[in-house]
């Protein structure tokens, strides 16, 4: 279910666009925030609030890779393993996350705290390796630094 504040937000989003369909992308982001991922219920909620048929809403959502189509941990770690990050040890960090937190790429830690998504260059090549935790950005990562960072999100 959408919270009342989220419903308000959705209404505001809707007003920025000429028609309901045009508002689908931000509406789905909002739903993702509210539901954690784009579950069938999330799609139905967006569809009924915007008055867009649900098959269409789902079609739009599945087109984009940045929407999540399975349940995610409470926090989303998006770690880059593209060239610069890789050269500076990103793959070691992937292994570290696996060993330390049981976090597989594309998976969720057993305690449900974190999900790991492997990214292709997040534009921080100069300060690689880099990652995002939810909307926060971290660079010059080391194993120890990652440990410190993730501690904050537990």
């Amino acid at each position, binding site marked *: 279910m959408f919270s009342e504040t989220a419903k308000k937000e959705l209404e505001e989003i809707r007003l920025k666009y000429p028609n309901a369909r045009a508002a689908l992308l931000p509406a789905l982001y909002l739903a993702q925030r509210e539901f954690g991922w784009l579950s*069938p219920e999330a*799609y139905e909620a967006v569809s009924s609030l915007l008055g867009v048929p649900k*098959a*269409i809403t*789902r*079609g739009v959502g*599945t087109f984009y890779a940045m929407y999540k189509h399975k349940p995610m941990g409470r926090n989303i770690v998006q770690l880059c393993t593209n060239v610069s990050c890789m050269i500076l040890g990103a793959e070691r960090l992937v292994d570290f996350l696996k060993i330390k937190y049981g976090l597989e790429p594309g998976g969720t830690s057993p305690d449900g705290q974190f999900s790991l998504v492997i990214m292709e260059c997040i534009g921080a090549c100069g300060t690689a390796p880099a990652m995002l935790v939810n909307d926060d950005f971290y660079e010059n990562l080391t194993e120890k630094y990652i440990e410190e960072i993730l501690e904050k999100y537990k």
Partner: protein
Amino acid sequence: MIKVTINGKEIELEKAVTVLDAARSAGIKIPTLCYHEQLEKYGGCRLCLVEVEKMPRLQTACTLMVTDGMVVRTETETIANVRRSVLEFLLINHPLDCPYCDKAGECELQDLVEKYGARAGRFTEEKRKVPESLEDPVLVRNMERCVVCTRCVRMCEGVQGAAALGVISRGGHSHIEPFSGGKFECEYCGNCVSVCPVGAIMSRLHRHSYRPWQLVSETETICPYCGVGCTLVAQVRDDVIKRVVPRIGTPVNNGLLCSRGRFGYEFVGSKERLTSPLIRKKGVLEESTWEEAISLVAKRLGEIKAKHGSDAISGIASPRCTNEDNYVFQKFMRVTLGTNNIDSTARTGYAGAQAFIENIFGQGSTANLIPGLANSDAVLVAGGDPTAVNPILGLQIRACARRGGSILTIGHVKGLRHYSPVELRPALFRETLALEGIVSALKNKKGLPGSNQILEAKLKDINTTPQEAAGACGVTEKDYAAFVDRLSGAATPAIVIGKEIVQSSGGNYKLFLLAAINYLVNGRIYLLSERANEQGLLDMGCAPDLLPGYRPLAYAEFRKRYETAWKTAISERPGLSIFGMIDAAKQGSLKAMYVMGENPVYNLPNSRDVEAALQKVDFLVVQDIFLSETAKLADVVFPALSWSEKSGTFTNMERRIQRVRKAVSREGMEDWRIIAEIARNMASKFHYTGPEEVFAEICKVSPLYRDLTYEEIEKGQSIYPYKGEPLRSTLEGISVDKGTGAVAASRFYLRLERPLFHSGTLSRKAAALVNIYSGALARISAADAVSLGVKDGDVVRVSTKIGSLELPVAIDGAVEQSVVMLTNNFEGKGAFGLAEYAVDPVTGAPVIDCNAVMIEKVER
């Protein structure tokens, strides 16, 4: 004039069309795949690429509009190469399982590859594997075969308006899914199946039991279900209907069908069909010969007529039988038995409503063309969901919305919800106020036209204020006014009236108000009709007060006309209505009843009472294709031929006469023939060799059909008023009975659900429809579910004064609070078993909206 040159050929065009259309008009073929004439243009498959001079790249002919002086080439080496590559790409992931695919033989991909090549692909990668989805009972989805042309999506959204399909994922992973990913849970029109060029969405009915080229015969006939009268093509192999498809260009449905029309035909081959006449012997129905049954019926009816008089016998005609069947039946009642006691279930709404409206606006005023709805600028809908009752008509209303027309609905019309209707949702029993408010407002806004004094005199006292009317609908005065403005501002408004209004308390007054609205906005009225030949049976004179061609029995000159034609005197006493027959049976004055193709014991309200009444009748004869609830009570049962096994005509709600044709054979007799046999056994001269002869007689005796023939009907020259004379009568008065409006207070009231997937008791024997909607439910609103403490699927006992049923709950957003909706389609679980009725004093329709209901949870 626009001049274009295609392949060196000069083409002159009146107006700009696509290059594809221009080429086709000149007989030049351009291959297409995503293009479909019924659908919006898409330009996705790139098969129709052509070279256009002065344009840099190849262009898609299906989307490019011609301009003056354009020079186009459609067959060059470059184009051939491109087409081959496009097809090669399509085959990367295509399974090429043609030997196993039902589409093979009529697959557009197969044909294209055969013609344009790419016989062998150069890709060595593994093909994408997706298991065939058999989760749905009716539709099978094979996404390996899908070419992502999106025809199905565009059909479902842009034409059918269900928007149940979407393109899921992207790139090479794109495929088509209904929302659930498995079951379609849609309107099951099957129109996506019609447009899919490959075997990616197909019907499960008769799967793998035929090849398209083995469908040896194709019969164009009319759908047996509702009054829209869609043309359908029954395709047959080994004397079995293997599938039913629509055809583009047919007048009413133009390439579309609804779930009932497309998937509802399986009753024809049901194992439960009656095969032999049955006679009740020592209380048990036993098989007999035709001779024995026919002579027994003739003998018994003769005895009863002699002993108790003609009027101790009555007949119920059938809106599922042909005009020919119904004509012969009423003639049998009037000529052989000498009574006007003939009526039908059209009395439950359609007949009375039509008579009421046509009294005001003239005969034929409800005969309006269905496709015309799409061109209206406003459609007012009251009394039901047209997309469920008359689905193809409903599509025209959706099309109207898409073209910018206003959809104005009174009550909750589920099937139009996505069409931004302007809604008025009157509180229970307050519809009258809402309608009066519209009439008052229109009067003030537009003034009285002055052309109908009798009607206007009755409008004088209608002065409901906008406050009252808006209050009754729970909307602001501003919203109420907006509703009225849309209506009053419309130039070509249409008013669609469903049975819910007719069967509600004060129904005749509400009809009057709708008629008044129609008068004030100068609109046209459509009456929804639930049965294929409901109109036809009235035209044939299957009514206690009407002779064929709508000639009132009351006028001696009309009687005389038919007396001359039939060479017998016709009783001048008007007959009993269907409800009068039930009452007479209860009182014991009705001694015999003849029921042709109808199931009154189930299809009339207070059905247990009807059952008790029919049990009292000394001699009950039933003609049917199944041993219906009514047939089970009969003394003699005749097995009839079904709609697909005989020839004749149906008349749809537009009053278009259409040919019903035999598609498969079966032993037995048509309804009219059985009756003619009995008549002959009773010394009446009923000598017809075939339905043509019956029809010829109709056209001879009835002034409405003068000189009409099957040949003319086949050419489509069969629109009202044909070549004959409609009856021109002058309006003598409008009788209206508002009733008291008093309704006993109750927490819940019973309402009838008229589902898209069922129709009377016939659809029960159509396996596909049963699979889609398989059992009776008690539909209630979410709020009521909370207050009752029940969830979806919980079993509740729904009881009224006269009965109770245990049913699973379905929470339904379209149900108003304090209402429980039940269907009247499933065996032993019909809403009419719980519904008492009173007869509307003006329309003669049963009023069924006041049944108080108790709901309690059944603890398991």
